[in-house]
Protein backbone atom coordinates (compact mmCIF):
# COMPACT_ATOMS: atom_id res chain seq x y z
CA UNK A 1 0.00 0.00 0.00
CA UNK A 2 1.94 2.97 -1.19
CA UNK A 3 0.66 6.27 -2.33
CA UNK A 4 1.96 8.53 -4.98
CA UNK A 5 0.12 11.39 -3.36
CA UNK A 6 2.18 11.43 -0.20
CA UNK A 7 5.13 13.06 -1.87
CA UNK A 8 3.39 16.31 -2.57
CA UNK A 9 1.35 16.81 0.45
CA UNK A 10 3.71 18.46 2.90
CA UNK A 11 4.43 21.34 0.60
CA UNK A 12 0.89 22.01 -0.38
CA UNK A 13 -1.62 24.77 -0.05
CA UNK A 14 -1.72 27.32 2.67
CA UNK A 15 -4.88 29.23 2.47
CA UNK A 16 -4.25 32.34 0.48
CA UNK A 17 -1.06 33.24 2.20
CA UNK A 18 1.76 31.26 0.62
CA UNK A 19 3.41 33.92 -1.36
CA UNK A 20 6.79 32.59 -0.34
CA UNK A 21 8.83 33.79 -3.27
CA UNK A 22 6.49 32.39 -5.84
CA UNK A 23 4.94 35.36 -7.56
CA UNK A 24 6.15 34.29 -10.98
CA UNK A 25 5.08 30.66 -10.73
CA UNK A 26 1.63 31.63 -9.59
CA UNK A 27 0.78 33.78 -12.58
CA UNK A 28 2.02 31.03 -14.87
CA UNK A 29 -0.06 28.40 -13.06
CA UNK A 30 -3.19 30.54 -13.16
CA UNK A 31 -2.75 31.05 -16.90
CA UNK A 32 -2.13 27.35 -17.37
CA UNK A 33 -5.25 26.50 -15.42
CA UNK A 34 -7.42 28.80 -17.52
CA UNK A 35 -5.83 27.57 -20.74
CA UNK A 36 -6.47 23.95 -19.75
CA UNK A 37 -10.06 24.78 -18.88
CA UNK A 38 -10.67 26.56 -22.20
CA UNK A 39 -9.02 23.87 -24.32
CA UNK A 40 -10.81 21.06 -22.49
CA UNK A 41 -14.19 22.69 -22.99
CA UNK A 42 -13.33 23.46 -26.61
CA UNK A 43 -12.99 19.74 -27.24
CA UNK A 44 -16.69 19.40 -26.50
CA UNK A 45 -18.11 22.49 -28.14
CA UNK A 46 -15.92 23.38 -31.10
CA UNK A 47 -17.41 22.92 -34.56
CA UNK A 48 -15.86 20.17 -36.69
CA UNK A 49 -14.35 22.54 -39.24
CA UNK A 50 -12.20 24.15 -36.54
CA UNK A 51 -11.16 20.83 -35.07
CA UNK A 52 -7.89 20.89 -36.92
CA UNK A 53 -6.77 24.05 -35.12
CA UNK A 54 -7.54 22.41 -31.79
CA UNK A 55 -5.51 19.36 -32.79
CA UNK A 56 -2.54 21.62 -33.48
CA UNK A 57 -2.91 23.27 -30.06
CA UNK A 58 -3.08 19.90 -28.34
CA UNK A 59 -0.09 18.60 -30.29
CA UNK A 60 1.78 21.61 -28.95
CA UNK A 61 0.74 20.68 -25.41
CA UNK A 62 1.81 17.06 -25.92
CA UNK A 63 5.22 18.07 -27.22
CA UNK A 64 5.69 20.50 -24.34
CA UNK A 65 4.45 17.91 -21.84
CA UNK A 66 6.72 15.14 -23.11
CA UNK A 67 9.58 17.63 -23.21
CA UNK A 68 8.90 18.27 -19.51
CA UNK A 69 9.18 14.53 -18.90
CA UNK A 70 5.49 13.75 -18.81
CA UNK A 71 4.38 10.18 -19.45
CA UNK A 72 1.96 10.36 -22.36
CA UNK A 73 1.19 6.67 -22.14
CA UNK A 74 -1.14 7.41 -19.17
CA UNK A 75 -3.51 9.09 -21.60
CA UNK A 76 -2.59 6.95 -24.57
CA UNK A 77 -3.81 3.81 -22.83
CA UNK A 78 -7.23 5.31 -22.15
CA UNK A 79 -7.37 6.56 -25.70
CA UNK A 80 -6.68 3.14 -27.20
CA UNK A 81 -9.25 1.42 -24.98
CA UNK A 82 -11.84 4.04 -25.91
CA UNK A 83 -10.96 3.72 -29.57
CA UNK A 84 -11.45 -0.03 -29.59
CA UNK A 85 -14.78 0.04 -27.71
CA UNK A 86 -16.28 2.95 -29.61
CA UNK A 87 -15.18 1.84 -33.06
CA UNK A 88 -16.47 -1.67 -32.56
CA UNK A 89 -19.79 -0.29 -31.34
CA UNK A 90 -19.96 1.99 -34.38
CA UNK A 91 -19.17 -0.90 -36.63
CA UNK A 92 -21.83 -3.11 -35.09
CA UNK A 93 -24.55 -0.48 -35.12
CA UNK A 94 -23.84 1.70 -38.13
CA UNK A 95 -21.62 -0.35 -40.35
CA UNK A 96 -18.40 0.65 -41.98
CA UNK A 97 -19.45 4.04 -43.32
CA UNK A 98 -19.49 5.93 -40.03
CA UNK A 99 -16.23 4.62 -38.59
CA UNK A 100 -14.51 7.92 -39.33
CA UNK A 101 -17.19 9.73 -37.37
CA UNK A 102 -16.56 7.41 -34.46
CA UNK A 103 -12.85 8.07 -34.61
CA UNK A 104 -13.53 11.81 -34.51
CA UNK A 105 -15.51 11.37 -31.30
CA UNK A 106 -12.70 9.46 -29.65
CA UNK A 107 -10.29 12.13 -30.80
CA UNK A 108 -12.43 14.74 -29.09
CA UNK A 109 -12.46 12.69 -25.88
CA UNK A 110 -8.69 12.49 -26.06
CA UNK A 111 -8.43 16.23 -26.54
CA UNK A 112 -10.64 16.83 -23.52
CA UNK A 113 -8.06 14.99 -21.41
CA UNK A 114 -4.82 16.27 -22.91
CA UNK A 115 -4.95 19.76 -21.34
CA UNK A 116 -5.49 18.24 -17.88
CA UNK A 117 -2.57 15.87 -18.36
CA UNK A 118 -0.43 18.75 -19.59
CA UNK A 119 -1.40 20.85 -16.58
CA UNK A 120 -0.45 18.11 -14.15
CA UNK A 121 2.89 17.63 -15.89
CA UNK A 122 3.92 21.25 -16.16
CA UNK A 123 2.50 22.91 -13.04
CA UNK A 124 3.38 21.94 -9.50
CA UNK A 125 0.25 20.68 -7.70
CA UNK A 126 0.75 22.96 -4.72
CA UNK A 127 0.72 25.95 -7.05
CA UNK A 128 -2.57 24.79 -8.52
CA UNK A 129 -3.82 24.56 -4.96
CA UNK A 130 -2.77 28.12 -4.26
CA UNK A 131 -4.63 29.42 -7.28
CA UNK A 132 -7.74 27.51 -6.27
CA UNK A 133 -7.69 28.82 -2.73
CA UNK A 134 -7.96 32.38 -4.04
CA UNK A 135 -11.54 31.65 -4.95
CA UNK A 136 -12.46 29.51 -1.93
CA UNK A 137 -13.84 30.84 1.37
CA UNK A 138 -11.28 30.90 4.21
CA UNK A 139 -12.76 27.94 6.07
CA UNK A 140 -12.68 25.60 3.09
CA UNK A 141 -9.23 26.77 2.11
CA UNK A 142 -8.15 25.85 5.64
CA UNK A 143 -9.90 22.47 5.41
CA UNK A 144 -8.07 21.64 2.19
CA UNK A 145 -4.74 22.80 3.56
CA UNK A 146 -5.24 20.75 6.73
CA UNK A 147 -6.38 17.65 4.82
CA UNK A 148 -3.39 17.77 2.53
CA UNK A 149 -0.93 18.31 5.34
CA UNK A 150 -2.49 15.40 7.23
CA UNK A 151 -2.39 13.14 4.18
CA UNK A 152 0.95 11.55 5.14
CA UNK A 153 -0.44 10.83 8.61
CA UNK A 154 -3.60 9.39 7.12
CA UNK A 155 -1.81 7.17 4.61
CA UNK A 156 0.57 5.95 7.30
CA UNK A 157 -2.44 5.15 9.46
CA UNK A 158 -4.14 3.29 6.59
CA UNK A 159 -0.99 1.33 5.89
CA UNK A 160 -0.33 0.43 9.51
CA UNK A 161 -3.89 -0.63 10.27
CA UNK A 162 -3.94 -2.62 7.03
CA UNK A 163 -0.70 -4.36 7.92
CA UNK A 164 -1.73 -5.14 11.49
CA UNK A 165 -4.96 -6.71 10.29
CA UNK A 166 -3.10 -8.66 7.59
CA UNK A 167 -0.87 -10.09 10.30
CA UNK A 168 -3.97 -10.91 12.34
CA UNK A 169 -5.10 -13.05 9.43
CA UNK A 170 -7.72 -10.81 7.84
CA UNK A 171 -8.60 -11.76 4.27
CA UNK A 172 -7.44 -8.47 2.81
CA UNK A 173 -4.18 -9.30 1.10
CA UNK A 174 -4.04 -8.00 -2.49
CA UNK A 175 -4.73 -11.55 -3.64
CA UNK A 176 -7.78 -11.98 -1.40
CA UNK A 177 -9.15 -8.62 -2.51
CA UNK A 178 -9.51 -9.83 -6.08
CA UNK A 179 -12.67 -11.46 -4.78
CA UNK A 180 -15.26 -8.73 -4.05
CA UNK A 181 -16.76 -10.89 -1.30
CA UNK A 182 -13.74 -10.00 0.82
CA UNK A 183 -14.26 -6.28 0.38
CA UNK A 184 -16.56 -6.12 3.36
CA UNK A 185 -13.70 -7.49 5.44
CA UNK A 186 -11.55 -4.60 4.24
CA UNK A 187 -14.30 -2.15 5.14
CA UNK A 188 -14.75 -3.64 8.59
CA UNK A 189 -11.24 -4.15 9.77
CA UNK A 190 -9.41 -1.33 7.99
CA UNK A 191 -11.81 1.41 6.95
CA UNK A 192 -13.94 1.26 10.09
CA UNK A 193 -11.05 1.76 12.56
CA UNK A 194 -9.70 4.36 10.18
CA UNK A 195 -12.95 6.32 10.30
CA UNK A 196 -12.72 6.29 14.09
CA UNK A 197 -9.22 7.77 13.79
CA UNK A 198 -10.47 10.37 11.32
CA UNK A 199 -13.25 11.40 13.68
CA UNK A 200 -10.72 11.88 16.47
CA UNK A 201 -8.32 13.66 14.15
CA UNK A 202 -10.95 16.11 12.91
CA UNK A 203 -11.96 16.88 16.48
CA UNK A 204 -8.38 17.56 17.53
CA UNK A 205 -7.45 19.57 14.47
CA UNK A 206 -10.53 21.73 14.92
CA UNK A 207 -9.60 22.28 18.55
CA UNK A 208 -5.98 23.10 17.75
CA UNK A 209 -7.04 25.67 15.16
CA UNK A 210 -9.73 27.22 17.30
CA UNK A 211 -7.38 27.57 20.24
CA UNK A 212 -5.24 29.61 17.89
CA UNK A 213 -8.25 31.84 17.29
CA UNK A 214 -9.25 30.40 13.94
CA UNK A 215 -12.71 31.54 12.90
CA UNK A 216 -12.87 34.43 15.37
CA UNK A 217 -13.06 37.03 12.62
CA UNK A 218 -14.63 36.74 9.21
CA UNK A 219 -11.77 38.55 7.51
CA UNK A 220 -8.21 37.72 8.46
CA UNK A 221 -4.89 39.35 7.72
CA UNK A 222 -2.10 37.53 5.90
CA UNK A 223 1.48 36.68 6.67
CA UNK A 224 3.99 37.74 4.05
Amino acid sequence: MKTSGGRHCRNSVNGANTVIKSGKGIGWTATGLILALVLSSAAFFIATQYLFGLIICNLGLIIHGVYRRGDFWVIGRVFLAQLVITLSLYYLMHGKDQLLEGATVVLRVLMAFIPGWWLSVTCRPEKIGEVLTWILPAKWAFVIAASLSLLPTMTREVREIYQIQCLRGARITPKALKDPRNWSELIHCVIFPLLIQLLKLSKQTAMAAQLRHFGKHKKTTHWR
Partner: protein
Amino acid sequence: MRKVFNFSLQDALFIGFCATLLVALKSMLRLKLGVAGHSMFLMTFFYLICYGVVGRVGSITACGFLSGLVAMMLSVGKGGPLILIKFGLPALAMDLSMMLFAGLLTLKWRCVVVGLVGCFAWAAKVWVENLLMGMTIQVALVQFGLSMLRGGAFTLLAALMVPPVLNRLRAHDLLFNEEIK
Protein backbone atom coordinates in the same frame (compact mmCIF):
# COMPACT_ATOMS: atom_id res chain seq x y z
CA MET B 1 -26.68 28.60 -0.18
CA ARG B 2 -24.20 29.92 2.36
CA LYS B 3 -26.19 28.25 5.14
CA VAL B 4 -26.16 24.84 3.47
CA PHE B 5 -22.37 24.70 3.56
CA ASN B 6 -21.98 26.30 6.97
CA PHE B 7 -20.65 23.24 8.79
CA SER B 8 -18.88 23.34 12.12
CA LEU B 9 -15.13 23.32 11.70
CA GLN B 10 -14.93 19.76 12.99
CA ASP B 11 -17.50 18.49 10.48
CA ALA B 12 -15.88 20.43 7.67
CA LEU B 13 -12.56 18.86 8.55
CA PHE B 14 -14.06 15.38 8.63
CA ILE B 15 -15.53 15.96 5.18
CA GLY B 16 -12.15 17.18 3.99
CA PHE B 17 -10.37 14.13 5.42
CA CYS B 18 -12.87 11.78 3.78
CA ALA B 19 -12.40 13.55 0.46
CA THR B 20 -8.62 13.36 0.73
CA LEU B 21 -8.73 9.72 1.71
CA LEU B 22 -11.06 8.95 -1.17
CA VAL B 23 -8.61 10.48 -3.61
CA ALA B 24 -5.59 8.82 -1.97
CA LEU B 25 -7.23 5.39 -1.97
CA LYS B 26 -8.32 5.87 -5.55
CA SER B 27 -4.75 6.54 -6.59
CA MET B 28 -3.54 3.51 -4.62
CA LEU B 29 -6.13 1.16 -6.08
CA ARG B 30 -6.06 2.49 -9.61
CA LEU B 31 -3.19 0.29 -10.65
CA LYS B 32 -4.39 -2.80 -8.84
CA LEU B 33 -7.95 -2.90 -10.15
CA GLY B 34 -8.17 -2.55 -13.87
CA VAL B 35 -11.98 -2.53 -13.93
CA ALA B 36 -13.65 0.71 -15.00
CA GLY B 37 -16.30 1.90 -12.60
CA HIS B 38 -14.52 0.98 -9.39
CA SER B 39 -14.22 4.68 -8.63
CA MET B 40 -17.98 4.60 -8.04
CA PHE B 41 -17.34 2.18 -5.19
CA LEU B 42 -15.08 4.54 -3.29
CA MET B 43 -17.15 7.59 -4.19
CA THR B 44 -20.44 6.11 -3.05
CA PHE B 45 -18.92 4.77 0.12
CA PHE B 46 -17.23 7.93 1.30
CA TYR B 47 -20.03 10.26 0.20
CA LEU B 48 -22.61 8.25 2.11
CA ILE B 49 -20.33 7.99 5.15
CA CYS B 50 -19.97 11.76 5.12
CA TYR B 51 -23.71 12.14 5.05
CA GLY B 52 -24.13 9.60 7.83
CA VAL B 53 -21.53 11.11 10.10
CA VAL B 54 -22.16 14.79 9.51
CA GLY B 55 -25.89 14.24 9.14
CA ARG B 56 -26.74 17.20 6.95
CA VAL B 57 -27.78 17.85 3.41
CA GLY B 58 -24.89 19.53 1.64
CA SER B 59 -22.22 17.31 3.15
CA ILE B 60 -22.10 15.04 0.09
CA THR B 61 -21.77 17.95 -2.30
CA ALA B 62 -19.07 19.47 -0.14
CA CYS B 63 -17.22 16.15 -0.07
CA GLY B 64 -17.59 15.78 -3.83
CA PHE B 65 -16.19 19.15 -4.72
CA LEU B 66 -13.43 18.90 -2.14
CA SER B 67 -12.43 15.53 -3.63
CA GLY B 68 -12.31 17.14 -7.04
CA LEU B 69 -10.14 19.98 -5.78
CA VAL B 70 -7.84 17.66 -3.87
CA ALA B 71 -7.54 15.34 -6.88
CA MET B 72 -6.62 18.31 -8.99
CA MET B 73 -3.97 19.43 -6.51
CA LEU B 74 -2.47 15.96 -6.23
CA SER B 75 -2.76 15.34 -9.98
CA VAL B 76 -4.61 12.12 -9.38
CA GLY B 77 -6.52 10.60 -12.28
CA LYS B 78 -6.19 12.17 -15.64
CA GLY B 79 -5.95 15.54 -13.95
CA GLY B 80 -7.25 18.88 -15.02
CA PRO B 81 -10.39 20.84 -14.36
CA LEU B 82 -12.70 18.11 -15.68
CA ILE B 83 -12.07 16.01 -12.60
CA LEU B 84 -14.01 18.54 -10.55
CA ILE B 85 -17.14 17.66 -12.48
CA LYS B 86 -16.36 13.98 -12.31
CA PHE B 87 -16.39 14.01 -8.52
CA GLY B 88 -18.81 16.87 -8.03
CA LEU B 89 -21.70 15.92 -10.28
CA PRO B 90 -22.56 12.53 -8.73
CA ALA B 91 -22.25 14.17 -5.31
CA LEU B 92 -24.66 16.92 -6.21
CA ALA B 93 -27.13 14.41 -7.61
CA MET B 94 -26.85 12.29 -4.47
CA ASP B 95 -27.44 15.27 -2.22
CA LEU B 96 -30.50 16.38 -4.17
CA SER B 97 -31.99 12.91 -4.09
CA MET B 98 -31.14 12.68 -0.40
CA MET B 99 -33.39 15.69 0.15
CA LEU B 100 -36.14 13.91 -1.73
CA PHE B 101 -35.88 10.66 0.17
CA ALA B 102 -35.08 12.06 3.61
CA GLY B 103 -37.02 10.03 6.15
CA LEU B 104 -38.78 7.97 3.50
CA LEU B 105 -37.06 4.60 3.33
CA THR B 106 -34.93 2.65 5.76
CA LEU B 107 -31.32 3.76 5.90
CA LYS B 108 -30.22 0.76 3.85
CA TRP B 109 -32.60 1.37 0.96
CA ARG B 110 -32.06 5.10 1.07
CA CYS B 111 -28.34 4.50 0.67
CA VAL B 112 -28.94 2.17 -2.27
CA VAL B 113 -31.36 4.51 -4.06
CA VAL B 114 -29.25 7.59 -3.46
CA GLY B 115 -26.11 5.72 -4.52
CA LEU B 116 -27.75 4.61 -7.74
CA VAL B 117 -28.86 8.16 -8.46
CA GLY B 118 -25.24 9.19 -8.05
CA CYS B 119 -24.17 6.42 -10.39
CA PHE B 120 -26.79 7.55 -12.89
CA ALA B 121 -25.40 11.08 -12.79
CA TRP B 122 -21.91 9.68 -13.28
CA ALA B 123 -22.93 7.65 -16.31
CA ALA B 124 -25.15 10.42 -17.66
CA LYS B 125 -22.22 12.81 -17.53
CA VAL B 126 -20.30 10.59 -19.92
CA TRP B 127 -23.40 10.24 -22.07
CA VAL B 128 -23.92 14.00 -22.41
CA GLU B 129 -20.23 14.46 -23.08
CA ASN B 130 -20.35 11.86 -25.81
CA LEU B 131 -23.39 13.47 -27.39
CA LEU B 132 -21.73 16.86 -27.27
CA MET B 133 -18.78 15.38 -29.07
CA GLY B 134 -21.05 14.22 -31.83
CA MET B 135 -21.41 10.54 -31.03
CA THR B 136 -24.57 9.01 -32.44
CA ILE B 137 -27.35 8.55 -29.88
CA GLN B 138 -27.40 4.78 -30.22
CA VAL B 139 -23.72 4.28 -29.56
CA ALA B 140 -23.79 6.76 -26.71
CA LEU B 141 -26.74 4.92 -25.21
CA VAL B 142 -24.95 1.58 -25.31
CA GLN B 143 -21.90 3.12 -23.66
CA PHE B 144 -24.18 4.71 -21.08
CA GLY B 145 -25.76 1.33 -20.40
CA LEU B 146 -22.36 -0.27 -19.99
CA SER B 147 -21.15 2.35 -17.50
CA MET B 148 -24.42 2.14 -15.64
CA LEU B 149 -24.05 -1.64 -15.34
CA ARG B 150 -20.45 -1.59 -14.19
CA GLY B 151 -20.75 1.47 -12.01
CA GLY B 152 -24.11 0.27 -10.66
CA ALA B 153 -22.68 -3.01 -9.43
CA PHE B 154 -19.90 -1.21 -7.57
CA THR B 155 -22.33 1.38 -6.24
CA LEU B 156 -24.65 -1.28 -4.94
CA LEU B 157 -21.81 -3.04 -3.17
CA ALA B 158 -20.65 0.18 -1.52
CA ALA B 159 -24.11 1.40 -0.59
CA LEU B 160 -24.86 -1.88 1.16
CA MET B 161 -21.71 -1.59 3.25
CA VAL B 162 -22.44 1.88 4.55
CA PRO B 163 -25.35 1.21 6.95
CA PRO B 164 -23.50 -1.48 8.96
CA VAL B 165 -20.52 0.82 9.36
CA LEU B 166 -22.73 3.71 10.46
CA ASN B 167 -24.62 1.46 12.83
CA ARG B 168 -21.37 0.27 14.33
CA LEU B 169 -20.10 3.81 14.78
CA ARG B 170 -23.36 4.74 16.47
CA ALA B 171 -23.42 1.63 18.66
CA HIS B 172 -19.98 2.55 19.95
CA ASP B 173 -21.00 6.11 20.75
CA LEU B 174 -18.64 7.51 18.19
CA LEU B 175 -21.12 9.65 16.28
CA PHE B 176 -21.90 13.12 17.48
CA ASN B 177 -24.88 13.82 15.24
CA GLU B 178 -27.98 11.88 16.05
CA GLU B 179 -30.23 12.93 13.18
CA ILE B 180 -29.63 10.02 10.83
CA LYS B 181 -31.63 6.97 11.80
